[in-house]
């Protein structure tokens, strides 16, 4: 019984949507884009500033996400490659079997971390978004 009701509702909605003209869809699309970007702009996702690379739990280095970079690191199972590009970072090559670390893709927000367990290499995003560009002292 309820199924018939829902089907009816869907049919009514479909009829309504058919009445929308091509331009309407454009306006709706622009409106939604506006909402998306205003949301992104004001509810700023905390973009991290630096990438911390650790091997065997020791910090190899901390690198600015602002600058393109490629790191080649040797460890337990072989050679891994980490890329920084466009304010984000990822594992691009890894000798591990399951390649989970590569499949995690890009990270850029503070506290986001990717760990390659078998290799004991991890990358994590750190740093607060500073409200200033430089410190005078």
């Amino acid at each position, binding site marked *: 019984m309820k199924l018939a009701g829902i089907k009816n509702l869907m049919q009514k909605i479909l009829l309504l949507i058919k009445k929308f003209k091509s331009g309407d869809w454009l306006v*709706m699309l622009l409106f939604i884009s506006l*909402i998306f970007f205003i949301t992104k702009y004001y509810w700023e996702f905390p973009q991290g500033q630096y990438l911390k690379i650790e091997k065997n739990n020791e910090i190899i280095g901390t690198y600015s996400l602002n600058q393109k970079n490629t790191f080649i690191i040797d460890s337990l199972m072989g050679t891994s490659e980490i890329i920084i590009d466009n304010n984000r970072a990822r594992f691009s090559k890894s000798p591990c079997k399951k390649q989970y670390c590569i499949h995690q893709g890009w990270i850029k927000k503070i506290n986001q971390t990717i760990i390659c367990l078998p290799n004991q290499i991890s990358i994590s995003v750190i740093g607060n978004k500073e409200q200033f560009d430089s410190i005078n002292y």
Partner: protein
Amino acid sequence: MTQSTIKTNSNDHKIAKLAAIAVAISLVEFFLPSPIPGVKPGIANIIILYTIFKFDYQTGVWVSLIRVFITSIIIGTFLSPTFFLSLSGALCSLLIVLIFKNYNKKNFSLISISLLASLAHIVGQFIVVRVWIIPHDGILYLLPLFLISAFIFGIVNGIIVQKLITSKTK
């Protein structure tokens, strides 16, 4: 003493009736809760849009302005910040409709106009809030919420107005 009578014609009756309905809707809307007190989605816009497209733009302007004034007088917020919020939203909305009302009827229906009017309504209110009532950038964090509401009501209002206009001509 000479008696002066104000003669009303049928147009005035029309405006009065529509304005009354708009005011009624506004009063109901007044009691709906809102994250920023005073900023409302503008359901009464249905009446305004209906008036503009069923009759003419000028009539619509009358109905809109009368709604704003009468509602604020009844509630008791006449000339208060809330009044200016409401007025600003209404004026921005009217302005946008004026610009776009005859634009490309082939590819754009009332839905588009309703969406744009709804957007202008919210933006108009937000400008008053940000510049005058709560002059703080923090208030802009609520903009996404209101934009989403404007989007939904824009579509809903548009569909309803469309239905009202096409069904009444039967």
